[in-house]
């Protein structure tokens, strides 16, 4: 019993550096940012005079920030839906006893291992529309080559497309992730279940709709949350691919925060953007975190 107590103390001593580091660098820093967002700090030198919520009020009236929020919604919807659909379709196809499955899987998943900066640099050239005088470039040139010239657009240079073009590159990078998640889920569904449904005369489409999709729902939820928080935070890809764009067509809150804080020295405003971003992510993540650690404890 005495030895147990001695080891208890040591165990808590061993975990405490991590606990203290997170307490300071995550929670303390968030508090510091939240406090900064309530001040007048608008140049390099800190000025912690409190001004209440006025930075937030100004922000929501700010046209750039309104565009950013709209862009985030558009980006998130397109990115999520295309990742879920492509990932699910690829997983279903790969689950049909495919020869060379490993190779296909590796090809679909490899973009996950590279930096958003690399993706951004490459896709900036791929979705570079070219010009009327010099001719098409990138994907547009490819469309010309295969006779699909009518599909040519201005991509991210077209203000009506803007952020949607960035969502294409993001989907290219992240859809392999949903494929891997769904494939793992499909492999966990016992073959007897499908066999029984087939014996009962269910078609393959019915099996997918009424058996597979409901069973994969927890995976869809995880994927929505993981991809959703990535999409709210998307920053690197914008930097490397387009920047804020003409009329902020490809601007997002994460980019605005960095730009206004570290280029414009509007620290209080940047802090306010950061806190709004954090709240958006927290609304998504906290219930999920509580749910997944609690269900785990029950097992």
């Amino acid at each position, binding site marked *: 019993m005495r030895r147990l107590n001695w080891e208890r103390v040591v165990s808590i001593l061993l975990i405490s550096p991590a606990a203290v580091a997170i307490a300071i*660098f995550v929670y303390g820093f968030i508090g510091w940012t939240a406090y900064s967002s309530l001040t007048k700090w608008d140049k390099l030198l800190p000025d912690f005079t409190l001004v209440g919520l006025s930075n937030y009020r100004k922000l929501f009236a700010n046209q750039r920030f309104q565009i950013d929020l709209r862009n985030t919604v558009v980006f998130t919807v397109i990115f999520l839906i295309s990742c879920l659909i492509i990932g699910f379709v690829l997983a279903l196809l790969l689950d049909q006893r495919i020869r060379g499955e490993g190779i296909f899987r590796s090809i679909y998943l490899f973009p996950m291992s590279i930096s958003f900066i690399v993706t951004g640099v*490459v896709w900036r050239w791929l979705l570079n529309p070219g010009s009327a005088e010099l001719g098409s470039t990138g994907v547009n040139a490819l469309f010309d080559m295969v006779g699909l010239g009518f599909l040519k657009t201005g991509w991210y240079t077209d203000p009506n497309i803007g952020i949607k073009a960035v969502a294409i590159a993001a989907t290219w990078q992240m859809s392999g992730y949903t494929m891997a998640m769904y494939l793992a889920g499909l492999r966990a569904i016992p073959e007897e279940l499908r066999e029984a449904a087939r014996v009962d005369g269910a078609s393959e489409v019915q099996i997918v709709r009424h058996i597979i999709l409901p069973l994969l729902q927890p995976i869809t939820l995880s994927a929505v949350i*993981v991809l959703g928080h990535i999409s709210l935070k998307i920053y690197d890809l914008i930097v490397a691919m387009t920047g804020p764009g003409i009329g902020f067509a490809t601007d997002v809150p994460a980019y605005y925060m960095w730009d206004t804080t570290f280029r414009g020295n509007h620290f209080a405003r940047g802090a306010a953007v950061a806190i709004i971003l*954090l709240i958006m992510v927290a609304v998504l993540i906290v219930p999920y975190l509580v749910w997944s*650690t609690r269900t785990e404890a029950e097992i």
Partner: protein
Amino acid sequence: MTTPTRELRRSTKSPIRWQRVVLYAVLVAFAIFYLMPVYVLVATGLKSFAEANLQRMWDLPKGLHFDSYVKAWFGSEAEGFRGLNVNFMNSVYLTVPATILSAMWGSINGYILSKWKFRGSDVLFPLLLFGMFIPYQSILIPLVQTLQKINIFGVKFYGSIPGLILAHVIYGIPITTLIFRNYYAGIPTELVEAARIDGANIFGIYRHVLFPLSVPGFVVVMIWQFTSIWNDFLFAATVTSNPATQPITVGLNNLAGSYIVEWNVQMAGALMTALPTLLVYIFLGRYFVRGLMAGSLKG
């Protein structure tokens, strides 16, 4: 008697064969979509400067020219831009120690949180995990302010590799702890009990039971940390402003953002940036996928 059965077999077999053809065609089409940017990256990097024409992006290179790689690596004094060689080495000096440190720290945390649970550890764990989902914009301002003040034995932390190592090790705590905790939870408690009866204490159990079984856990964590630290842009761009200390993602972004650098040189630089993590993925992909799954909290 034989003819009808053969007829029957053929009629059930031929639609299935057609389905297989369509199946493989779709899989190959997707593979082409994922590999398309790689083709452009590799083909462009190998073209001579005369050949690297945006309008002829999709043409095969006529020979093997390594000029683009040489220029991206060494830079060009005449044209006034720096090569990526310094940045590449900075990334190595950053990634290697940060990966090792955070793996070791995560292993200790995971050990305590799986085998030495205490009152409150079920609350501490989700609080730690929240740290891996936050948008880092919400801690950037305090991080910069703090790093500017840290100066240990004349080593400045702001604008330097040690500062970046510190940031990555601390913000790596949640994911490394999560992976190790789930990994150690899978090691039977009987093993720990047996070691206990043999007289091992909290350190002995770790050294003689857990640690020797940890190799796969370390591989997963180290691959994960290596990939995310190598690919990081946000911390790197915020903490290091001097080109001589910037990691490769920032170097590539500067190279690609400069109007004087030809696009084939940018492509060569992008391939250099992607190569280390891509090689890790190609050779250790299995472990990479495991880390990916852990990131969605489903160990």
